């Protein structure tokens, strides 16, 4: 099933790979993929990893499989972005040439999409790695592991407020012992929630507008390695 109103903007990353494979597994495909330039990460672990994300939802992830490889035989066109900078005039002009009004955003980490890109009449669907608004910002899931022993994901429409846009859906996940977080668990949790949103769009025929929620909002910055270590210890992810 092709989602004719939906683009997928993918930078080379494990998150983009998880999104592509989750969409493929759910049979919900974007109309096209815009591939941002960059170096594909090299995976040297197991070819496939199975993770029980939550009751009733087990993900199979091939971390070494690129987005282009996932979509190669599914009829989804992959086009190259003219710039790696999603805020550049060239890239914004390119986006304007596509008719799809919704863009699944899997851009480079830490990049903030600015007003000119957000103002071209397309909505940017982003799945943040944290349970917003309590855990906004960077590496928020490590802070939530320290605070409450969970990792979170929040699907929202991007606005100029960092992780502060209208929320479509959100969920907390129990960390899975022995499965690394940065490259596996966080991407898979986000992909899981993304598929839920896409399934909702499929059922309803349209994306929800989402609801703003700024109550008890906290914005986090990249966690210091010592605190990250304590969080990893809490989830049984230390190498002995």
């Amino acid at each position, binding site marked *: 099933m092709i989602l004719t109103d939906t683009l997928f903007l993918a930078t080379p990353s494990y998150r983009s790979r998880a999104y592509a494979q989750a969409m493929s597994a759910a049979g919900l495909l974007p109309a096209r993929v815009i591939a941002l330039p960059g170096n594909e990460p090299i995976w040297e672990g197991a070819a496939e990893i199975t993770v029980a994300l939550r009751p009733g939802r087990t993900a199979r992830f091939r971390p070494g499989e690129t987005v282009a490889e996932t979509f190669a035989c599914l009829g989804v066109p992959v086009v190259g972005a003219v710039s790696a900078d999603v805020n550049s005039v060239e890239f914004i002009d390119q986006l304007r040439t596509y008719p799809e009004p919704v863009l699944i955003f899997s851009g480079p980490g830490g990049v903030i999409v600015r007003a000119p890109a957000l103002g071209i009449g397309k909505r940017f669907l982003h799945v943040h790695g944290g349970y917003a608004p309590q855990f906004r910002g960077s590496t928020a899931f490590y802070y939530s592991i320290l*605070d409450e022993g969970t990792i979170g994901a929040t699907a929202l429409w991007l606005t100029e407020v960092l992780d502060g846009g209208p929320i479509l859906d959100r969920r907390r996940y129990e960390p899975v012992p022995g499965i690394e977080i940065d490259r596996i668990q966080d991407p898979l949790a986000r992909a899981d929630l993304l598929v839920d949103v896409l399934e909702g769009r499929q059922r309803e025929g349209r994306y929800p507008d989402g609801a703003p929620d700024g109550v008890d909002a906290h914005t986090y*910055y*990249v966690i210091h390695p*010592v*605190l990250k*270590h*304590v969080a*990893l210890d809490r989830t049984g*992810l230390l190498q002995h």
Partner: protein
Amino acid sequence: MTEYVYTRRNLFEAPEYYHYAQCNQAGYLEAWRNSRRDFVGALVQARYEAAGPAAREAEPLEARLAGLTAEVGQAGRVSADAADVVHRLVHKYEVSRRLYQRYAGDWRRLEGVPAAGLQTYLWFAQLLILHCRHIPRDRQKLSTLLKVCDALASLDPATYSAAQSRALEAILAAESELVDQLAREFQ
């Protein structure tokens, strides 16, 4: 052997942003503690050779942080003003890894104002410590404190005056206690 790598270069000259840190080795905390212990040893050694501080006027942000640190220490609680200043400076430090000697009333950076001196970072660290002691679940502030301490420990110990050296030794001891306290929560 696990090593702590974040104080090997001058972080005021070449800031560190800690993306995708590899810290999942079982001996990581011990490596961090050893790194801090070695620095404190060098700090104490250099103290005996340090010249007395040159008389100078305190920078505006430095003076404000000194005042707030004294106020929070005496009151035994974090006032709204102190919490707001900590919040603003954490944002500024996390974004640019720099503080400046003075800001506009709405915390905008002012054109031409120089970067803050070492003493401002020492007061900032002390205020963060007090904040973390009073509000221990505010992990963001502890994370920022660790980064500020990395930066301070990335300098040549001889950089510090004897008074600054003693203050930094106390800061690193308090930092260690706060990390121990956090680690104990999960034992």
